[in-house]
């Protein structure tokens, strides 16, 4: 399984491959453009960072309000019966963490999502080093994204002067539900297939 270190390593490979290949290519094709295009890349990044600061300033404020009114807790309580059905045979404490994780993920509260997921995984872990099917199910649901309002994307579109920035809301919601649905079905299929294989092995 990839550790955080390996992720950085793989980004390192991607980054080095991209820049080195491009630079070698440019040495022959357009040697004078190499440095200016790197600098103009960072200039774009600065502009984007300013835009993102504005976007997050507004959206994080809305999320703070939702948090202060207990909206996230309400959603996680509403999700409880569904979660109980998907993740069978886990402890109440696990259900707590899973519902906080999924509710905050749906609302786009990035801050609460990851810690809750880490706690949920730890509480579902029965045997050191072995991932149970329920753990992998939680991972697949999170990895296919279940955000209801893609706030950053909509705000970026609004900042770029879109005629209707929120028009991507429905396609995004349908696409992400499709991905999560397919993921959950495949995870179930794989889980039962590996269970059967184990049975036959014994």
């Amino acid at each position: 399984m990839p550790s955080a270190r390996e992720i950085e390593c793989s980004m390192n490979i991607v980054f080095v491959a991209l820049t080195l290949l491009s630079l070698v290519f440019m040495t022959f094709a357009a040697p004078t453009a190499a440095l200016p295009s790197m600098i103009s890349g960072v200039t774009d990044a600065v502009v984007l960072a300013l835009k993102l600061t504005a976007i997050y300033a507004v959206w994080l404020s809305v999320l703070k309000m939702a948090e202060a009114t207990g909206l996230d807790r309400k959603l996680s309580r509403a999700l409880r019966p569904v979660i109980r059905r998907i993740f069978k045979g886990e402890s109440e404490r696990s259900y707590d963490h899973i519902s906080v994780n999924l509710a905050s993920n749906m609302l786009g509260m990035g801050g609460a999502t990851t810690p809750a997921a880490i706690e949920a995984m730890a509480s579902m872990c029965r045997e050191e080093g072995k991932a149970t099917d329920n753990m992998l199910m939680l991972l697949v649901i999170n990895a296919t994204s279940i955000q209801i309002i893609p706030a950053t994307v909509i705000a970026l579109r609004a900042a770029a002067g879109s005629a209707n920035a929120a028009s991507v809301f429905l396609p995004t919601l349908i696409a992400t539900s499709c991905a999560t649905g397919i993921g959950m079905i495949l995870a179930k299929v794989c889980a039962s297939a590996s269970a059967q294989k184990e049975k036959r092995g014994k």
Partner: protein
Amino acid sequence: MTAYLLPVILVGAMVYALVKKVNVYDCFLDGARDSLTLVRNIFPYIAVIFIAIELFRASGLAAIVSGWLSHPMKYLGIPPEIAELVLLVPLSGNGAIALLEDIINTYGVDSYIARCAATIAGASETIFYVSAVYFTKCKVKTLRYAIPVSLFSSFCGMVTACALCRVM
């Protein structure tokens, strides 16, 4: 109809906050304060990926690679212009946002290509990051089928996203 979505959510949240006697002004101050910290944390990632993207574009390599990918992508209804985004999304969320901004600036925010890109960026998650970080407390050695299943399903989501942008 979706034009009303955001204002309605904002009005709803604020009225609800008033009913619950939450200090709205303080919430906004907190949000604005946190946004600076957040952007300060993600700026290095954006800056570095933009260097790579800009070089990749300027060298002409991007055109060559999208040329290779254009046929299989077109077959699935994904515009070849966003091939880079499809490849980057599972690796880096901040990188994907940076690339989305780039695509919006290049092709125009309401073009089919930019709407596809926005839908893909909004509907996907950094799979490798999630699978690395979630298991930091319980040390799991093998993820068995989790990564292929996640990658395949989110790719299905992307194909769906492009198909939906054609009609919606």
